[in-house]
């Protein structure tokens, strides 16, 4: 399988591919790109996308800098949804900014 090239250089980072992580449970007000359904769920780092300006700040006219590391996180559907109707191997993946992640 070919390696994915991150969009930007990656600085020092807390999580590597394969690390188990839990999404923070908080419900801060305002513009957030971490869907409610994934908060508090545990998955695994699938890849590191790069460093991007923080959309939570950009939404209000700030520049969102310094950028934050954006990870892709992979979850088992059966870990996300109570009574998930498909096979145990089904997966959901999404991009989560570093400040939303805690070690599992």
């Amino acid at each position, binding site marked *: 399988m*070919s390696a994915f090239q991150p969009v930007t250089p990656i600085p020092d980072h807390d999580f590597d591919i394969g690390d188990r992580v839990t999404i923070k449970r908080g419900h801060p007000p305002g513009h957030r790109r971490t869907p409610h359904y994934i908060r508090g769920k545990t998955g695994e780092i699938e890849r590191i996308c790069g460093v991007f300006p923080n959309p939570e700040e950009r939404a209000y006219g700030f520049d969102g800098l310094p950028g934050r590391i954006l990870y892709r996180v992979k979850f088992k559907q059966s870990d996300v*949804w109570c009574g998930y109707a498909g096979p145990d191997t089904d997966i959901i*993946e999404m991009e989560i900014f570093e400040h939303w992640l805690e070690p599992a």
Partner: protein
Amino acid sequence: MSQDHSHNDDHAPQTDVKEGPPGEYEILSRAMQEILEEKGLIKAEQIQKKMELYDEDYPNRGAKVVAKAWTDPEFKARLLENGNKAVAELGISMEADHLIAVENTPEVHNLIVCTLCSCYPRSLLGMPPTWYKSRNYRSRVVHEPRSVLSEFGTEISNDTTVRVHDSNADMRYVVLPMRPEGTEDWSAEQLEELLSRDHLVGVTVPVVD
């Protein structure tokens, strides 16, 4: 019920026929556009050009990229490594989008959504279809993807993983479907004709009758 649309009838009818006086939202949109033009903040030509790109250019790009990936394994490897760089080889600019191509295999079927709004690889596929932007799709595809796939006439075996991608940040996704059996001798052009936008979002799979 099969919804396997061929490339040619992919694009829903675009009604240019005026159907009576414009509604309030149309008037609001035109008002904003005219004011911005009058202030010199945008040019009418930019709007025109953007509409042309969306109508004539963007929707044709995805099939071209996938057909090339099917016929050129080294291109496919480069596409999976760096989406933007690979499509640039075909003269396609992803503009502000960062592309990730996700490959269907016998083990994995990929499906794309943006639950929070309607993020979509517009520079590669054009405008998202109305169903993609609908609340029903956005709500359900993440927790009952197989049921949603059935509504599109697509059944994925329980031996195959369904992998849903919620494109909630800066990356945009295109599905690289499996090349159908029976197309081994086909040219890239013939393969392009076979592919539809729905295949590249993952709600249907290309097959040869």
